[in-house]
């Protein structure tokens, strides 16, 4: 078995250690003897996106957004939308997650059109939602608990056609109002969680890998790994910082 990972826009969407997610995925595949390749696809690159099984998009800075949107309008946006529609697996973090929605509207009313690959939109707020947080994944995403660090002023609202990725246990989540966190649409996983999210949440990491492998091979079994260190840092955040008990 093999998995081809596409790291979208690593040169601009790389804030907050999100590349740790790529490290985590490749490592968890390699120790299981599953070969894995990671290709960076950045601004100006135009490879055939249908050759990839899993797409990763991280968070970024405001300054660089314009450069990025120009590139998306140049055709890559269409390819990404098709890949989402075809059920390719996507992990999108923070800015990358917002970018999958219809638009981002700043709090003074300026609207920035995004990809519209998933039915959601984001509105800029004046309060930054920052801190360690936790959410319970929906059953379709494995049902485990995720801990992470959120840092966003945008408030994201989900449309009819999509599900939240999980339910907030502590923290703000999508908008600090409706208790939802992230999005799950087809095989697209969107979340605000930095940290990076995958190393401390090995069950979620494996769920995403399994989704991508299943999509390609029809079924996939991932043998369990020794996750003692992963869970030590998971429980440290859950218990010490969030005062939540192990489920």
């Amino acid at each position: 078995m093999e998995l081809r990972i596409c790291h979208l826009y690593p040169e601009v969407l790389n804030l907050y250690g999100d590349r740790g997610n790529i490290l985590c995925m490749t490592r968890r595949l390699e120790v299981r003897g599953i070969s894995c390749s990671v290709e960076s696809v950045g601004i100006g690159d135009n490879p055939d996106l249908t050759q990839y099984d899993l797409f990763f998009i991280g968070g970024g800075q405001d300054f660089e957004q314009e450069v990025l949107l120009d590139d998306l309008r140049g055709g890559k946006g269409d390819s990404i939308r098709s890949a989402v529609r075809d059920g390719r697996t996507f992990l999108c973090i923070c800015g990358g997650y917002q970018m999958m929605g219809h638009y981002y509207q700043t709090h003074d009313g300026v609207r920035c059109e995004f990809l519209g690959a998933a039915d959601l939109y984001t509105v800029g707020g004046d309060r930054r939602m920052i801190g360690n947080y936790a959410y319970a994944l929906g059953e379709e995403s494995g049902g485990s608990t995720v801990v992470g660090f959120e840092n966003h002023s945008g408030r994201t609202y989900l449309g009819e056609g999509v599900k939240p990725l999980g339910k907030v246990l502590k923290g703000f989540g999508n908008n600090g109002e409706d208790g939802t966190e992230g999005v799950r649409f087809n095989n697209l996983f969107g979340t605000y969680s930095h940290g990076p999210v995958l190393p401390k949440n090995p069950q979620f990491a494996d769920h995403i890998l399994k989704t991508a492998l299943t999509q390609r091979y029809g079924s996939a079994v991932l043998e369990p790994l020794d996750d003692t260190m992963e869970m030590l840092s998971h429980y440290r955040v859950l218990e010490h910082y969030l005062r939540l008990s192990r489920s």
Partner: protein
Amino acid sequence: MRPGSICAVAACKLTRQALRLFHRGGTALPGKAARLFDPDILKRVSEGMEIIVVTGTNGKTTTCSMLENALRAGGRESLSNKSGANLLSGVTAELTCNATWTGKPKTHYAVIECDEGALKQVAPLISPKVIIVTNLFRDQLDRYGEVMHTLDEIRKGILASPGSILCLNADDSLTGSLAGDVPNPVVWYGLDTPTGEEKEPVLSDARYCIRCGTEYGYHYHTYAHLGGFFCPKCGYSRPEPDFAVTQIEEMNTAGTRCRVRMSAAPYEMEITVGLPAVYNLYNAMAALCACTAFGLPAEECAASLKTVHSSFGRMENFILGKTSLQMILVKNPAGCSQALEYLSSVKEPCRAVFALNDRTADGHDISWIWDADYEKICSSGILQEILVLGDRAEDMQLRLKYAGADTSRITIVREAREALKWIEASPVPVFAFPNYTSMLELREAVRERTGEKEFWQ
């Protein structure tokens, strides 16, 4: 002197003395007390002084230490806020406590480290003769927002002090862009020569032109986004520095010997910087550039760089029993990767301590450790044993696991005192890489053991 100002000076001095009775550093609270009585006290107690301010992401404290050393070499005593309290209250405390009871400065010179966000408050009050902006990298993002926001903050600070001479790093496209936005006279420093592996950095905080958005080209790299950058479209490029390292002759764990050119002199000087690593070369050039702008002889400052000592947790050396310990503060990916690069250049077997806290002074978001290049030291094979320490020791351990460390050689502890036992038991040299508050704790544990001075002395 207004009565309010006299009360302010008294409040500052008395608060500090009271705090020190209880063995507290008292670096910020006395300043707050003084400002209650006179919000402009800082302006009054710095009246007539000649001041150099150092701001920027990395290298502030070490550059200040080099400047103080240079001033001292010429027989000039200077004040500094060396304990690291670099916000308005901390700077106020330092200058007010060192004034006479009637608010007159006791020393003529001061070297002030200033937080990037606090510059706009501090600079207009103390009217510095020279402001150094060292560099700009992603830092504690959950507090300052993003890199561009920090740059805006620095710009506001400089605009509030239009008479100051600016010393800018020519190799940094971010802070270098300040020159076009402010009326101040500018002097540049930099490295004319590549360092390290001379490769495109994996992560760059400035990949696209700050003026037009086009990807930069580089004639050479030094580290992170620093180097000989140019924009192929709009022409924004590295300015020719007035002070620059032209050649690195020798670099080891004791320091660096290199050749330096100055635009004002027809010959090159050979200088020795008494602290190792590339980033200290930048700090040395910043100090040399600023001293000259300040009116001191360049040769005098250049010679003083040889005798500069490490400051407060920045490559500071200790002996614990038979073990040597070097402590290197790391707070962000660029600085951390450079410190790890330095560790990977060590030739003998050694052990390492990685300490990580996530308190307010550190930034609550510790995900930046995934952007620092721990892979490099984990693959070098020189680390016999590893200790992880601090509030987020588990995260540090996990980072090292994914960087390829042998997990059976990692020990995890929470408290600095426990770490000290581990360090003392080491038969080989130990290098410790703590972030800010974990450095304070580790240093305090060392101090208890060795009876060394408290940090404000």
